[in-house]
């Protein structure tokens, strides 16, 4: 009796092992621990011995061991009438050309109209994908869907199941044709949806073929800026921009993981039409794109006085299609020239406090060399009135000393005429070398007073006016005599 029980236990044990596949049976050393540790008993010792015997058969006589396994194998199909259900890919949309970011719903349709409920089996559905460039199918990153025996529609005997993990094809690193199929397993039969025929009208396919294209990241041109637009070569300069459609990008980043979906943005900097510098940084789609002179020494001293432009290229690295976009050309910064002179004390004064238009005006400034040696440069004086905007009044060339500021004076200038009367005026200077602000000109400074509204410089009894009147009288008299002589004397004679 004891032997019979032992053999029965061994058979049950072996059947479980065989059902689980080719599993190594652990050897329990010395009859100690494990199951024999809980009270000992003679039957456990026999089982241990039998296990060791079986392991010895497995090693020493594999053929007979395999035969032994067939003796203990029990088929889990209880009927030969069972017919494996039909399985299709399900994709109701007619549009098979989609972008990586389009929302999709990929499903499988199972029809089990051959088997009565009593013999139906649970069906395990696995989605397989052949990505662009792949030679074969591989399991998609989705969970296996299980169709239980009671999950079929009573009338059509069908069951529809989506693979919820696939909401878009943004995970693809290469775009092109994507093939999808379903592998079905009922425990005994493994088969694919590819054995079925298509019914595109209802969205059933034996194999779903989708054409997936890429929409590369695009920077919004209107968000491009560089600040400050005019700067010294060693100033902090920042370029900023934003990607288009940040909501989509945020979703992508959230779902697929930040590292995988970063966008490579390259800032290209041009002087005239030549690219003089570029720098690439990864950005998350929702981030503000920012490059600055902290990232790299973009400008050097030799760039002083040059005007630059820039643009961005953006790429997501997706193969098989367009993956890079370029922005328009943005302008800036203008790098200020290196200062050569220091200019201070810009001033203007009139002969007196009347500020008549005909008066002499004195303009001046102080200049000093910023370099190690004296600097020769030209100063142009300009005035600005509504009647005469940006009028060049005078120019002079001077040599600015290094040790002390020197006065540059424009004395007794007559910058205005009668049209400037009753108007305000500005004045400014232009230099042939950059000043301490890196500028080749001074800011316009408003005159201390409005130009006097009086129009005529001379009084009626002034010699000039007396001369004017006398000459007018002489003109009339002379005109009368000349005309009379020319046109009347001969006629009347």
């Amino acid at each position: 009796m004891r032997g019979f029980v032992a053999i029965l236990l061994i058979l049950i044990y072996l059947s479980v092992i065989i059902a689980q596949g080719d599993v190594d049976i652990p050897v329990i050393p010395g009859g100690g621990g494990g199951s024999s540790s809980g009270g000992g008993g003679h039957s456990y010792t026999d089982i241990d011995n039998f296990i060791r015997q079986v392991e010895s058969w497995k090693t020493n006589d594999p053929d007979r061991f395999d035969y032994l396994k067939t003796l203990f194998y029990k088929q889990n199909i209880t009927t030969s009438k069972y017919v494996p259900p039909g399985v299709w890919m399900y994709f109701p949309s007619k549009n098979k050309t989609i972008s990586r970011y389009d929302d999709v719903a990929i499903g499988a349709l199972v029809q089990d109209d051959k088997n009565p409920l009593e013999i139906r089996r649970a069906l395990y559905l696995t989605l397989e994908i052949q990505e662009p460039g792949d030679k074969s199918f591989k399991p998609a990153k989705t969970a296996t869907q299980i169709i239980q025996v009671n999950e079929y529609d009573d009338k059509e005997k069908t069951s529809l199941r989506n693979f919820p993990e696939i909401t878009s094809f943004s995970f693809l690193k290469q775009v092109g044709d994507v093939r999808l199929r379903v592998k079905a397993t009922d425990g005994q039969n493994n088969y694919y949806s590819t054995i079925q025929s298509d019914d595109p009208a209802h969205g059933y396919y034996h194999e779903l073929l989708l054409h997936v294209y890429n929409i590369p990241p695009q920077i919004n041109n209107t968000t491009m800026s560089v600040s400050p637009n005019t700067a010294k070569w060693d100033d902090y300069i920042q370029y900023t921009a934003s990607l288009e459609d940040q909501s989509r990008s945020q979703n992508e980043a959230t779902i697929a993981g930040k590292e995988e979906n970063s966008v490579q943005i390259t800032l290209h900097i041009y002087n005239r039409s030549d690219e003089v510098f570029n720098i690439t940084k990864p950005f998350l789609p929702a981030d503000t794109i920012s490059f600055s002179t902290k990232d790299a020494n973009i400008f050097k001293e030799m760039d002083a006085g040059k005007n630059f432009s820039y643009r961005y290229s953006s790429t997501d690295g997706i193969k098989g299609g367009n993956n890079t976009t370029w922005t328009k050309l943005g302008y800036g910064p203008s790098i200020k020239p290196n200062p050569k002179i220091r200019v201070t004390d810009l001033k203007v004064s009139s002969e007196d406090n009347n500020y008549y238009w005909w008066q002499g005006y004195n303009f001046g400034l102080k200049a000093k060399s910023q370099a190690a040696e004296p600097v020769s440069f030209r100063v142009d004086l300009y005035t600005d009135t509504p009647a005469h905007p940006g009028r060049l009044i005078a120019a002079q060339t001077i040599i600015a000393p290094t040790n002390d500021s020197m006065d540059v004076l424009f004395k007794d200038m007559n910058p205005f005429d009668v049209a400037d009367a009753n108007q305000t005026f500005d004045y400014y200077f232009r230099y042939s070398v950059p000043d301490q602000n890196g500028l080749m000109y001074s800011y316009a400074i408003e005159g201390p007073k409005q130009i006097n509204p009086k129009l005529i410089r001379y009084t009626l009894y002034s010699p000039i006016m007396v001369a004017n009147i006398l000459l007018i009288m002489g003109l009339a008299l002379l005109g009368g005599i000349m005309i009379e002589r020319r046109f009347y004397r001969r006629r009347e004679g």
Partner: protein
Amino acid sequence: MGWDSVSFLLLLAFLVAGLCSHIMYMDKMHKRISVLSNIKVSKNRLYMGLSIPHGSNFNSVAISAWILFFIALAYLYFLTPAVFDRFNYFRLPVMASSPFGFLVFATWIFLLTVLVSAYLPRIYSFYEISKGFKTAILLPSPLLVISLLCSAYIGTIYPMFTSLTDLAWKASFLTLLISELVLLSPIFIGYAEVNR
């Protein structure tokens, strides 16, 4: 419309009236001579027949007076922006800024009106002018110089206005008006006589 503009139109109206009187005078003379001589006389022959020489002194003074009249007229109305804001001496800043801008301005007026000034005294040859008027024709020139001085005074102090400004303007206008009437009086008188 201000008094300035009205006064300008008044002076122009007298000029137009003088022109119309002369045309009607010539027309009436033409008809009358045609009726009296019972032959058709051409206007050119009429002009030649009616033409009476008044002497070179008279002609010279009359031409000078008309030249001065147009210069004085321009000075009163076109020297400052007070009357015609868009058309005045100061709209030409290069000229107005010059010390001899007044003379240049007068020269321009002279050149613009020289044909009219030269032709007007010829009209006098169709009228019988008394010795008294030949003396009176000397009057407009000094009056017009006064007008010129008054206008120049207003221009030199512009845009300042003093109590003298208004007085100067009125004096300038009155002397201009009197001069015009004197210069046109042979025509008006001749027209009145032919209508008697």
